[in-house]
């Protein structure tokens, strides 16, 4: 049965055009990823060049789609068919899922040699180490609780950095009065939930966020603080233009870049878009922490999950992993991508103002214990629960769920169902 199923899956993969991936060359790194937007593709080029210097060819298997859903489906088909890629971009609990299924490789030797366990934050190791074995190489740390503001618009309306949630609302009001779209939001469920992550941290504080969204404590999920968070979400959504539904995140970022909108609440991958558009922080755009979340970092991290490839392809994999976590690559890559290095000992010299801020924040949060996994990004809970959460938030934003009481009730039930 198993053999038959795998051949069926091979057929599926071949038909879907990924068939090339199985004719594996030993000097070749096959990488499945969904980094197809401008800033992301440029960032990936850095790694391509590093590896080609060592004589490894790069075989791209890009699967477009911002949240990586399509890529994960393709990956599942490849894994079911037994044609593992060398590595795949993966997020949080997905790595652990695959590790549990026994398809991940073991990089512990390389990790020891390179000293990963000392330099990579413990919060990340929770996802890159399974059962004592390194199964993934973290590429970066993104943090989610950022505001991205167009400086020209900010100057025009005479705004200043918001210190509290109410300040933010006042700022949005000013933008509205000046005839600018106050908030650029893409109406896809992961974007709405990403913004809600920040709102919950801002409304309930670090302890509350951890209890509700990392430990999934039912009392916290049901609490009045959670209801208040939904109320705040309802307040902020009023500042979105009517045409936001279904918009991609990078189009929302483009609205801020062009000055059509004042602010976007988004992870720091948005900075990659600003950089790709030749904009400089503090001159063309501003990056602030979401008001009320200073000192904490809601993170997600892109990881290269390393698959259990045959021995002859292992050398290429080790080279990829070593290159990925080398200080030079971590610096060069993250400068372009907008994120910060996945190891805390990388100098911040090459980074711009926002990057320097991000590195310092990550270090402080790592030491202060306020580094939390983003539920919207699959670092707070397994995919079934994270998706149930995104559903509820999205339905609330689009008005299918009408009150915060109802939203909380549905959130508790949805998470309970998905457990």
């Amino acid at each position, binding site marked *: 049965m198993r053999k038959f199923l795998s051949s069926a899956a091979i057929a599926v993969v071949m038909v879907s055009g990924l068939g090339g991936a199985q004719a594996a060359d030993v000097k070749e790194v096959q990488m499945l990823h969904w980094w197809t937007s401008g800033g992301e593709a440029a960032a990936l080029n850095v790694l391509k060049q590093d590896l080609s210097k060592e004589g490894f060819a790069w075989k791209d298997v890009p699967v477009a789609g911002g949240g990586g859903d399509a890529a994960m489906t393709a990956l*599942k088909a490849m894994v079911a068919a037994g044609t593992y890629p060398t590595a795949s971009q993966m997020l949080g609990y997905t790595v652990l899922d695959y590790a549990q299924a026994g398809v991940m490789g073991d990089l512990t030797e390389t990790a020891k040699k390179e000293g990963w366990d000392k330099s990579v934050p413990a919060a990340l190791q929770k996802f890159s180490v399974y059962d004592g074995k390194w199964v993934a190489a973290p590429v970066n740390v993104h943090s989610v609780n950022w505001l991205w503001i167009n400086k020209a618009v900010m100057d025009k309306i005479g705004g200043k950095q918001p210190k509290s949630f109410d300040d933010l609302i006042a700022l949005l009001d000013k933008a509205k009065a000046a005839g600018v779209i106050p908030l650029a939001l893409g109406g896809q469920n992961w974007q709405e939930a990403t913004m809600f992550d920040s709102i919950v941290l801002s409304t309930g504080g670090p302890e509350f966020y951890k209890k509700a969204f990392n430990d999934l404590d039912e009392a916290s999920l049901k609490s009045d603080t959670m209801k208040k968070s939904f109320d705040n979400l309802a307040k902020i959504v009023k500042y979105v233009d009517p045409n936001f539904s279904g918009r991609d995140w990078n189009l929302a970022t483009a609205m801020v870049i062009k000055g059509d909108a004042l602010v976007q609440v988004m992870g720091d991958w948005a900075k990659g878009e600003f950089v790709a558009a030749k904009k400089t922080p503090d001159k063309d755009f501003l990056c602030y922490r979401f008001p009320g979340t200073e000192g904490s970092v809601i993170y997600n991290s892109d990881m290269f999950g390393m698959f259990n490839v045959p021995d002859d392809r292992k050398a290429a994999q080790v080279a990829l992993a070593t290159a990925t976590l080398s200080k030079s690559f971590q610096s060069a890559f993250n400068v372009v991508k907008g994120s910060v290095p996945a190891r805390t000992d990388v100098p911040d010299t090459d980074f711009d103002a926002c990057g320097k801020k991000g590195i310092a924040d990550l270090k402080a949060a790592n030491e202060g214990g306020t580094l939390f996994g983003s539920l919207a990004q699959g670092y707070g809970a397994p995919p079934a629960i994270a998706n149930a959460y995104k559903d509820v938030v999205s339905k609330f934003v689009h008005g299918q769920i009408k009150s915060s009481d109802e939203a909380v009730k549905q959130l508790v039930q949805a998470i309970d169902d998905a457990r």
Partner: protein
Amino acid sequence: MSTVATTDPVLTPEQAGGMSIRSRLQDALPKIVLAPSFVITLIFVYGFIVWTAYLSFTNSKTFPSYELTGARAYQRLWRWTFENDPPSSWYTSITNMAIFGFLYVGICLALGLLLAILLDQKIRGEGLLRPIFLYPMALSFIVTGVAWKWFLDPGLGLEQTLHHFGWTSFHFDWIKNKDFVIYTVVIAGVWQASGFVMAMFLAGLRGIDGEIMKAAQIDGASPFQLYRRIIIPLLRPIFLSTFIVLAHMAIKSYDLVVALTSGGPGGSAWLPSNFMYEYTFKRNEMAVGSASAIIMLMTISAIIVPYLYSELKEKAR
């Protein structure tokens, strides 16, 4: 003579043997040629149906698991429907299915028939008009979806264009509206399929014996009566087969929703097929996804089986 007589018996058994292998081969040829596709269909259609049914009774998550755990997945599906304040995703999906199925099939049939009747009036340029109406069928749903998505987007398409022409009070944002987004799917679907329905009806109309119509006209039937009492009833078999084609297209419709609405605001444009794909492949809830797939299969069977039954009964008669 004698040589011929001696050679003949030597040749005949060989020839006879050759003939019998050949004729046996000829007999078996259809079966041999059909066997691979039969086996493939058996495995990839019916085998996987059984497999999906089995999975729906397990607790499969990311990857299939083979341990039976009872009908929990089905209970979850239906509990969402009846006990939750709407709209749970499954509830939304089946409500949308009903709206979409009813309107899509209904409008396609009506519009297709109307177009066919008009084209049948021996108008000039029919050769040009027919392919124009039929052409949308050649596009895939993805293309239809993307094209209509741009056309209906208030910031890009119709609304924006009319605003440019000065009609600034014009407002059409169904595609961004949770309550109306499913109707935009109907619009795009109808645009795509009504030409095909027209072609089917046109073929049917052309197949009707002209003598019957002449006889009716001599009896004094008006064109309206002619169509209502004679022609449309004669088209019954076409109605049935068109209905079957449209109904199963409606139930399995997936790509149109994705391309046109990417699921709609808050998942409000989902059809059961979207639900199935989401839960099986994106949410790692394979058991729930399989359960919804089985329910879809039962819905389709509820349409197809009576049809097949009536067809077979007619043949037997």
